[in-house]
């Protein structure tokens, strides 16, 4: 055998060869994240769902009921696709998933309204599908209140009030809502900003753990450590360096996609988010090395890394807030790098507040990066003595 080259760059070159010699690495480091980037951003390109299919049951069939329905259909987010003859029919249509909700106007609505008997109209939505259900509710509720106000306004104007007075009477206090940072209530902004880094972080956790333990499994760990002069820190950092580069490229791709191409709000500019993404990559790698060192079994450490990566999506709190979770899980959320990335994104991109407010979150990510220092010596030992158990 010829003289084996040693040193940092020799390991880097060796790792690049390993990465290119197996399709698995290309798939999991490049293709998988890219697929998810494209998937999520194109899936929700409408931003806020438009023309959600809804139905009506109009048992009254009068001028009042028809004007309610006509108005409802003119809303952007609601589309009345069908009239049903009875409540049961509409409910069955909902169970078949043809509509997400329906309006029910019972017989005698107009008659009761004009004779001042206060009739009731009902809104039904299928809350099995939470998002369309909530959005339909908003439109239908507004419509119902407006229908009522229209009748009330007519009574008032008949009694001699002007329009201003009528509105001041019908709705003395009104709400003016200002959604900060995302005034369009855009779901793409709301979900993709965390979903894309979440998938990337998941792949980083798995690839890092897999690539380290494969050395042990295939019996190449001896060679690897020998090249690093038996210095495990050097061995690991040189091995992970080319991977960090590939992941950084992926992070740059999604950042440009989100804040450049799609023009999502990034109120403090590009750099704080790039820093956060870089730190997320290093933190995920650090966490994976920590686990890989602590558990000297490819399958178990990979299982734990996978669990961590998948669980970080709900527990980061971007869809269901952490404050709504049970206390033990709230405490657990501190152990997920993605949680800190999400908090940084809220501060830096969505709300655009000074970086000092997010200092702790950046620091926490940094701590994940140096986490392996705790137990990396175990990995060195394992690399020397390890035997693979399936």
């Amino acid at each position: 055998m010829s003289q084996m080259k040693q040193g940092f760059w020799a390991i880097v070159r060796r790792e690049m060869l390993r990465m290119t010699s197996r399709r698995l690495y290309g798939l999991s480091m490049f293709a998988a994240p890219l697929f998810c980037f494209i998937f999520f951003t194109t899936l929700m390109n409408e931003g806020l769902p438009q023309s959600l299919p809804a139905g009506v049951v109009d048992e009254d069939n009068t001028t009042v009921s028809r004007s309610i329905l006509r108005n409802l259909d003119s809303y952007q987010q609601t589309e009345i696709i069908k009239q049903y003859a009875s409540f049961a029919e509409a409910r069955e249509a909902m169970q078949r998933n043809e509509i997400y909700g329906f309006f029910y106007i019972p017989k005698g609505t107009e008659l009761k309204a004009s004779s001042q008997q206060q009739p009731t109209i009902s809104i039904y939505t299928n809350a099995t599908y939470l998002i369309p259900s909530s959005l339909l509710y908003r439109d239908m509720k507004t419509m119902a209140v407006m229908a009522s106000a229209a009748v009330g306004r007519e009574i008032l104007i008949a009694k001699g009030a002007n329009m201003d007075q009528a509105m001041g009477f019908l709705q003395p206090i009104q709400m003016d809502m200002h959604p900060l940072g995302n005034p369009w209530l855009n779901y793409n902004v709301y979900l993709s900003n965390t979903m894309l880094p979440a998938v990337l972080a998941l792949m980083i956790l798995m690839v890092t753990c897999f690539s380290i333990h494969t050395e042990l499994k295939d019996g190449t760990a001896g060679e690897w450590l020998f090249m690093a002069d038996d210095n495990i820190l050097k061995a690991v950092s040189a091995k992970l360096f080319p991977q960090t580069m590939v992941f950084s490229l992926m992070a740059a791709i999604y950042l440009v996609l989100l804040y450049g191409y799609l023009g999502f709000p990034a109120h403090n500019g590009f750099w704080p988010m790039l820093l956060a993404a870089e730190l997320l990559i290093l933190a995920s790698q650090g966490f994976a090395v920590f686990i890989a060192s602590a558990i000297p079994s490819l399958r178990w450490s990979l299982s734990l890394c996978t669990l961590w990566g998948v669980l970080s999506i709900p527990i980061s709190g971007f869809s269901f807030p952490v404050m709504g979770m049970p206390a033990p899980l709230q405490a657990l959320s501190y152990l997920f790098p993605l949680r800190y990335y999400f908090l940084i994104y809220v501060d830096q991109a969505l709300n655009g507040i000074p970086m000092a407010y997010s200092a702790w979150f950046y620091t926490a990510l940094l701590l994940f990066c140096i986490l392996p220092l705790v137990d990396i010596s175990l990995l060195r030992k394992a690399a020397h003595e390890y035997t693979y158990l399936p």
Partner: protein
Amino acid sequence: MWVKDLLDVTGKELRKTVSDVGVLVFFIIVPLLYPLLYAYLYGGEVVREVPVVAVDDCRSTTSREFLRKSDATPDLKIVSYCADMEEARNVLHNHKAYGIIQIPSEFESTLTDGRQATVNLYCDMSGLLYYKALLSGCTMVSLDMNRDIQMVRLSGMSDREKEVMTMPIENEYVTMFNPANGFQAFLIPAVLILVLQQTLVLGVAMMAGTEHERRRKGELILGNEYSNPITVLAGKALAYLLVYGFTATYVLCLVPWFFNMPQLWQLPTLVAFIVPFLLASIFFAISISFFVKDRESCFLLFVFISVPLIFMSGISWPTSNMPAFWKAFAQIFPSTHAVNGFARINTAGALLQDVRYESIALWIQTAVYFMTSLFIYERLYRSDKMPGADFANAMRSRMYKELREAEIDLKVIRRKLKSKL
């Protein structure tokens, strides 16, 4: 005998499953614990007592009443009263609150004049549930106060007259099938189905990976015992179906029951729907498991896809608003149809005829994926039974043995070298 062969394969596959801890984790442990974790996570259904700050520029009886009543709603909790917006924003920046209720100084005078007064709400958009809580909490208070104000203005009428006057047409809202209108009842059915499909894929892929490794090393030759690939395929599928009969019962029936979630299914419908789902998933898993070259790569290849899959099902972002391409792409996964069908059977009490489209799709998938897996099996068998395959295998296993020995030698040499230095 055909049946005997089939049962023989089934028995062997079951034994292989039980003796492989890695596979057991996927088939038993993950389905056992993971749904519990998720259901526990979303157990709160909604967020309560969202911390907000109040900026009362009016400082009147009415404005104080508004804030007091907002604080009293289950949705909101006023954590601080600030002197101005600057101070309020500072509280938000320090992550102590997620919204601001600002009452302008002319609030009460406008009301006294009989004109429309405005309350300003500012909401942190990091979570849509904060927005929902702030809006619904304050709307509730304003509706309540509006009626009171109207009642006072209408003095001289009877109570009933006032009520009719203020709300000529009453409305009511019914969130069907998800009484708390919360996260658990909406997301968990999708998670449960996905856990079943993904653990099947991972477990089957891990076994296939192991098999592939052994074939590569010449330790395993297919097609020696059973001449017919259909028997082997059917036998394996039967084994997985037996295991997943239990797993699915636990995941789909017991887990929702533990957490008191809506369960409106009827047994014949549920069974008639879940069996094709399991079959489709099994053959889907077998089909894609051929791409797995070693034991552990299934993690890297198949785990991440769960995340897009949950969105493809349309449980979150509505199917009616998906781009056509993704709608079509989603059709190839059993989970897409199963999530939609199961969510409606379980949560909305749909019957088999209501989920006809989904169940037909699952049967078609079962047929298609059975054919693809059979096709790949045939090819594997043929390659293992080619003339000279025995010889090639013997060579391969010898090569691996020698490679191992050389590695051990290398280790010894290195150790010696090191002790010399």
